[in-house]
């Protein structure tokens, strides 16, 4: 993804994840800032459908040409879907981090968990902190 962007219809977590809320479910991914820092992603290890994720805890790992890095969930809940296309095309995380590069879908235990996340403007301000 060549252009830095933070869509306003998403919310953001301090660990550089984005969240798209769809009713009781949340779709998670990493932000432009994160994919740019990681570099070319070559492998994504994700939880399985039915696994539980815990807010603030890692739920998977991404291997890039630079590093293996944990990915953190901003919410607690049960995984209902994972982006299996990343197995063959991990570069989607870099090329379309808000679209085809999504990671997992979670049925949240409590939708109110989203209240503590940042909107796009707050996230960009967060990134600009010294």
């Amino acid at each position: 993804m060549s252009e830095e962007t933070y869509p306003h219809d998403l919310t953001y977590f301090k660990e550089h994840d984005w969240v798209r809320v769809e009713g009781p479910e949340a779709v998670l991914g990493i932000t432009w800032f994160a994919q740019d820092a990681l570099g070319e992603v070559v492998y994504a290890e994700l939880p399985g459908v039915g696994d539980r994720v815990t807010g603030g805890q890692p739920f998977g790992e991404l291997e890039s040409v630079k590093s293996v890095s944990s990915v953190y969930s901003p919410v607690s809940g049960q995984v209902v879907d994972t982006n299996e296309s990343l197995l063959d095309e991990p570069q989607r995380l870099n090329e379309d981090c808000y679209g085809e590069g999504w990671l997992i879908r979670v049925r949240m235990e409590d939708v109110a968990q989203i209240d503590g996340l940042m909107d796009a403007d707050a996230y960009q301000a967060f990134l600009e902190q010294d």
Partner: protein
Amino acid sequence: MALDVGLLQTAEEVFARRYSWTPPALSLGKFQRVQLLPQLPFDVVRRPSGGRAVLHGDDFEWSFAVVLPAAALGDHPGVAVDVTTPYGLVADAFSATLEEFGVILDGIGEAAGRRSAFCFAGVMRHDLITRGEKIVALAQARGQGRVLVHGSVLERRPPRELTEAAEVLLGEPWAGEGLAGAGYSFVRESLWAGVLERLETGLKAARAS
């Protein structure tokens, strides 16, 4: 290697260590897929970091690990995903020490992006190369607020028994003559002492910035 994993999970301050392997071992990158064969002349372990296979053995190579709690690198929001600064700290410490020892490096960051199933046959951005030989390989793992930068210094080509078995296992030819291939030889302890000194200086500068 298990200690490296433990440090990544628990270290509360910067920790750096040097270690060697007896008996020899082949470490695989975290997600590197290999079909193991019976009766290999080395142990096979898996690293917490990515990258490709590294042959380890006290006769030809030594390993190192630097664990950095997030606070060691500052508290700005980018620390959580900043993979460049930790690499730079360790690579700069090695390069400055090697240059003081008379090694002329081909250039950190001049990566051809060459990839292989063997770590030392490929070239990635933060590796250290001299006279065309990769001599220091670095890899990184991050999680739980910590960064592990660990790697390998290849002193000379491993014994044929090991390289031939590894070639069969990985399906690619071995490449890498290390420091000896480039015409260099150093006392490990001296090199590591220099790296530690420069690492400490680099960390102070990172905290101050």
